[in-house]
């Protein structure tokens, strides 16, 4: 992650090489070590990628390939980007395009790529007191919940899921608040548990819901696009390197190697093939024969329009 550590390692490496110099004459030549070996990449990401176990499956082949360590810090999208803003991480994997765009427009992030997607689902108690089941519009479902003042549990933590929830409330034309609306400030798993215990509605990413489904009595009432539901509930993940011009001591080379790996056919295969409880949780989106320039720039940005 930093120059200091690299220098430290270089010093140790140099010492080791000097010590080994005598041996190499005997063994007949030194083995070439890639320059990045032994370095550490700090990845800040969301709880959904970590808690579902995807990151462990994704990172192990990368660590083997480069001889490096990936430190994954699961924080939620807002906090992950904030950590990167301070220069404390090298690469971010998050799922809130508006926050990602802000991050890039601030000059903190570069080389954004679309990585993968899944979707959000609106879940609720079995009786469905508000009557939102199978609605084709997420905004309509939210408006109905608000009208019925049925209990709703919000993440309330500036995470990607929370950001999406606010977008849906906005579309529904509702300013959520009141006794029926609870902001918890907790992770997705904890919020699903609260919804289960209180018979409340909530918005969940499909992956976390599936991994917890067997333990809770809340069911999917409105599907996301993967289940044929509204496009508004799409949940795209992006990956962005921290700008080394802003934070010179980030490990930019390794961050780009990581982005290269996760968006490569190999990395995308790992995402495609990853199963939790027999279900596919994430769908690869980095590879396409057709150009998709929007993934590199803030949404709606155009060079003709100047600054967006």
């Amino acid at each position, binding site marked *: *992650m*930093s120059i*200091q*550590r690299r220098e430290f390692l270089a010093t140790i490496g140099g010492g080791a090489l000097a010590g080994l110099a005598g041996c190499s004459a005997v063994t007949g030549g030194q083995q070439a070590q890639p320059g990045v070996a032994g370095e550490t990449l*700090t990845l800040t990401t969301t*709880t959904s990628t970590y*808690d579902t176990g995807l*990151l*462990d*499956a994704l*990172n*192990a082949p990368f*660590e083997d390939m480069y001889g490096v*360590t*990936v*430190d*994954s*810090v*699961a*924080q939620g999208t807002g906090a992950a980007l904030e950590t990167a803003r*301070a*220069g*404390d991480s090298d690469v971010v994997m998050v799922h809130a395009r508006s926050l990602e765009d802000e991050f890039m427009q601030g000059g903190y992030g570069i080389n954004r790529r679309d990585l993968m997607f899944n979707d959000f689902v609106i879940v609720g108690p079995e009786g469905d007191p508000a009557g939102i089941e199978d609605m084709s519009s997420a905004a309509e479902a939210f408006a109905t919940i608000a009208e019925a003042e049925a209990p709703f549990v919000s993440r309330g933590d500036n995470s990607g899921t929370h950001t999406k929830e606010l977008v849906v409330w906005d579309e529904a034309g509702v300013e959520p608040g009141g006794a029926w609306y609870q902001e918890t400030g*907790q*992770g997705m*798993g*904890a919020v*699903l*548990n609260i919804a289960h215990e209180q018979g409340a509605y909530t918005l969940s990413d499909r992956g*976390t819901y599936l*991994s*917890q489904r067997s*333990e*809770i009595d809340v069911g999917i009432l409105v599907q996301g696009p993967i289940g044929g539901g509204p496009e508004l509930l799409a949940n795209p993940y992006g990956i962005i390197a921290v700008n080394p011009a802003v*934070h010179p*001591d980030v490990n930019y080379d390794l961050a780009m190697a990581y982005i290269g790996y996760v968006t490569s056919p190999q990395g995308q295969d790992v995402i495609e093939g990853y199963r939790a409880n027999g279900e596919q949780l994430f769908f690869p989106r980095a590879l396409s024969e057709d150009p998709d320039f929007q993934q590199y720039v803030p949404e709606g940005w155009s060079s003709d329009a100047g600054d967006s």
Partner: protein
Amino acid sequence: MPLEALGAAGLPIAVGLPAAAGLPFESVYLRSIVAVSLYVSVTAVVLSTVVSLPIAVALGFSDFPGRRFLAAVITTGMGFPSVVVGLLVLFAVSNQGPLGTFDLVFTREAMIVSQFVLATPPITAISLAAIGGVGTDVRDAARVLGGTKVDVALVTLKEARYGIATAILAGFGRAISEVGSVLIVGGNIAGSDGVSKTRTLTTAIQLEARQGRYDTALVLGAVLVVLVLIVNAVVVRIGDEGVMQ
């Protein structure tokens, strides 16, 4: 490296437990988080003790204006919220912070710093109370017998050893059971091979609870309680052996 040694120390509890309890993780995972927990908390408490005892002795043996105020400040520090300490330490060690050049964010060293800050007030305050509790007759006797200032201090420390052991245990208890600051400055990192880098028992419990796996969280909680019991027993034992000498 002391971490491996601590891992070996935690081995008797940790080995076989996952298999026995049917837990969804391997013993190497549990061993490594026990090792990180012990390494961070023990190091922090040792450093805290080294700093706290001289302060307690100096305060206990002197009288100056503001002494009571200083003692009150230290006592207040016992109630300092760990999350706030975590945030302050994060700002200090962050890339942009005053200690940014040392690259301490998301390392065990940063966790030691925050636990040091948390453990020092209780150790100082309780040691101070213990030293104050040693009768002036003991000090006078030491002085009459021709002891230097250092001798008198040592005698007082020896008399107050149980109170000081309590102080150290209180500091250790605060350090090892604390979750807010180590989560913020350590990042709760475990590698893809299941080996903890900055994940402690408390942050692992938080991680399990976040995902609604309360049974696993409870088992980890039981491991933590057993660990604290063992450390308490060891410290009390050391105190007793000190008496015999």
